[in-house]
């Protein structure tokens, strides 16, 4: 079947990551379970795409003297501290407190030794003559930090990964960076399957999976008998999601299929026990005003939800009625407040009337009515 990486290369990458990868997935060579072999849907476009290797998984092949690294660190700190004064747009500015935290994480991801060597320089006796091993050249680190601040490149693209729930997911341009709010979708599924074992056995689908975050989170809470199909229209997303699935050795549980929404799910009508999605939901008019990191760098395909942002959501509502089994569960992420109410109203009217029960709006930790959930009648 289609595998983006030859397994040999893959394992060598993983073993190189050992010292820093704290919540690392299993490092054994991927096991090709029968589920993967039985894949039917072709992934023609994604064949040629090789996901980028995130910083923390790279080989530490750059040795630099500690004093040079300190110099870089001081420079990076100064740059981070000065962002607020130098900003012209008062609406959308970087926060230096957050930047300092990101700088600490950048060091964690790029240095092999204890990051404290850099952060607590006063305690080191020798005067920085010692060599430290880095996963990127110092030159690249200067460049990466400049991109972060001057180009507003999202930190997660800079380091090539996002920590999400207890996972470390590879991300790159072309794939939406999973948001903290979305973690709650997995929490809801976890709660549901803890209450009712029935949900552990059937097929789940994560539509527009992006990095594969939700699919992987759900597969982990479903346990060994779980089956998740993750779809995405974007070939880059398919390649990255496949890579992430493989990193967590979940090929036996998660199948990544390329295609628009329900298209890759042919033959599963009325068979799903669960359906989850974080579809594009931002109204088209809001796209130009987005935060620089989002608007300038993240894929429009994953953000733009049409005129009122509900194009994909409405499509998902109809699909949910068709694809879910009786008693099947769904949760969709929305733009909040008005939109979530709209979706609930929509699902209680017209031809979707009598399709769903227990429709609920669930808010995120910031108190925004973020999710719509319910069950197929």
């Amino acid at each position: 079947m289609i595998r983006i990486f030859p397994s040999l290369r893959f394992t060598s990458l993983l073993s190189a990551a050992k010292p820093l990868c704290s919540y690392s997935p299993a490092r054994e060579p991927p096991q090709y379970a029968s589920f993967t072999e039985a894949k039917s849907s072709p992934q023609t476009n994604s064949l040629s795409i090789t996901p980028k290797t995130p910083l923390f998984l790279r080989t530490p092949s750059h040795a630099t003297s500690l004093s040079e690294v300190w110099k870089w660190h001081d420079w990076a700190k100064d740059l981070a501290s000065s962002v607020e004064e130098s900003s012209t747009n008062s609406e959308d500015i970087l926060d230096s407190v957050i930047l300092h935290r990101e700088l600490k994480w950048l060091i964690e991801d790029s240095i092999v030794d204890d990051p404290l060597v850099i952060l607590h320089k006063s305690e080191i006796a020798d005067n920085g003559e010692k060599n430290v091993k880095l996963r990127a050249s110092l030159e690249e680190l200067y460049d990466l930090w400049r991109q972060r601040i001057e180009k507003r490149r999202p930190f997660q693209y800079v380091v090539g990964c996002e920590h999400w729930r207890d996972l470390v997911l590879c991300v790159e341009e072309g794939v939406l960076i999973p948001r903290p709010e979305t973690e709650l979708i997995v929490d809801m599924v976890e709660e549901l399957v803890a209450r009712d074992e029935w949900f552990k056995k059937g097929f789940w689908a994560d539509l527009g999976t992006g990095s594969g975050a939700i699919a992987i989170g759900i597969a982990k809470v479903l346990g060994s008998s779980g089956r998740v199909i993750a779809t995405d229209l974007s070939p880059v997303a398919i390649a990255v999601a496949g890579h992430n699935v493989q990193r967590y050795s979940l090929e036996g549980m998660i199948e990544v299929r390329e295609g628009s929404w329900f298209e890759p799910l042919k033959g599963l009508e009325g068979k799903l026990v669960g359906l989850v999605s974080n579809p594009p939901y931002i109204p088209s008019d809001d796209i130009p005003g987005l935060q620089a990191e989002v608007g300038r760098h993240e894929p429009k395909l994953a953000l733009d939800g049409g005129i009122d942002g509900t194009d994909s959501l409405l499509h998902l509502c109809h699909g949910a009625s068709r694809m879910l089994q009786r008693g099947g569960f769904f949760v969709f992420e929305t733009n909040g407040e008005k939109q979530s109410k709209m979706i609930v109203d929509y699902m209680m009217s017209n031809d979707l009337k009598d399709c769903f029960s227990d429709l609920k709006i669930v808010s995120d930790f910031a108190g925004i009515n973020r999710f719509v959930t319910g069950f197929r009648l």
Partner: protein
Amino acid sequence: MLSLIIRRSRSRFINGIKIRTIFSSCNSLSYPDSSSSVLVSRRNFNSTPASSYFGFNSGKISYSESNFVSTTRSLSSEAVAVATTCDGLTVERIIANQWPILDENESDWKSHAAAISQSIQVIKRRLQWKKLLVRLNVLSAELNKPDLWNDPIHAGKISREHGSLTGKMKGVMTFERELLEHIDMLKLAKEEDDSELESDTLKALMDMRRVSKEKELEALLSAENDPCSCYIEVQAGAGGTESNDWAFMVMEMYKTWAQRRKFSVTVVDEAAGEIAGIKRATIKVNGEYAYGYAKAEVGVHRLVRISPFDSGKRRHTSFAAVAVIPILGDGSTRVQINDSDLRIERFRSGGAGGQHANTTDSAVRIIHIPTGITATCQNERSQHMNKASAMAVLQSRIDQLEMARQTAMNAQHTQSLTEISWGNQIRTYVLHPYRMVKDLRTNYEVSDPDSVLEGDLDGFILSFLSSSLDKDDPEH
């Protein structure tokens, strides 16, 4: 007597019960008021002919056998028996004799015995010996109740505590008896003119003397939660930047102290000051006895210096409050928290969130509605992990509150930040006009503030721990 000794050495291999009966007439656990057995045994020993002593030059065997004697009575008896030598010497009498304590390398058994006895006394005081014995009796009575296991959680707690206290008590009793046996052995060796045995025994005493110093330190950390990991929290006092900077320095001091002690440190929560330093911060210190040591730091720390933030170069006094919270192990009974009592909040700058925002800031605050206790974490890289960390802090704070409630009577708990009054100063750090760090509780002082601020705190911690335990026991 000849026959007694021979029988003793033979019967070791033949009949265990016999050993016990014979042995107990000599090296026994006798009650202070029953001096008759002591007299008998002394007479026996005095008349021992030199030739009778053979096959008995291994001091080590005798320890293990005498352990056997020891444990049989102490648990059940109302008053704990006192170990004596054959001629009635006890640890207390050794101390009362006031034998001079010479250097460790001097081969003087009296000096060794006096040093070890003093250590035993210190250890007992630190373990709060009298209280420990009373508590042990209470626990034994509780354990004997037939309906104990109707409440398995309570029963588990009782039997754990009983096990731990018994272990401590036995440890001291064995050590004490070992000392007295060595003394018996030494006297015997002198009488028998057995120089090999004499030097062996002296060496054994010297070893005990070294071990006893370690045991003294161990006894400092014998409270129930001392082995736990902990959170250390620092809160800046009033005074803006200058005291925020001081709070930062205090937190750095603990971070390096913990690293030196080979504890692992993670920052859980940190609120930066406007210009410099921190308003408040929480770190997690992982490692054996982290709480036992760190609890000595609870209170207000005062700094006197020329402020680098004052263009007028005036002298400033700033304060920082320190709280220490134990992270209870799985074995302890922890307070059950209902999900419905929690409110989880995410900080946000008021934006639309979701796909609109890309931020690495996934800080979470959890509020326990019934108690109003909150916990915050923003240093993890995912919201999920921040929530888990904050939840762990919250759990420990609530556990601490519960402990405080339960032990309000004997004031054994460490205070939380909110309970610490700013008047409760424990230590002063003076950088100007002179240089000194002084603990106001123990008067322990150091003239090099830099070393202290770089984490060299053990002197302060140990002196406080020993002084607080010495104070606790009115007997001494």
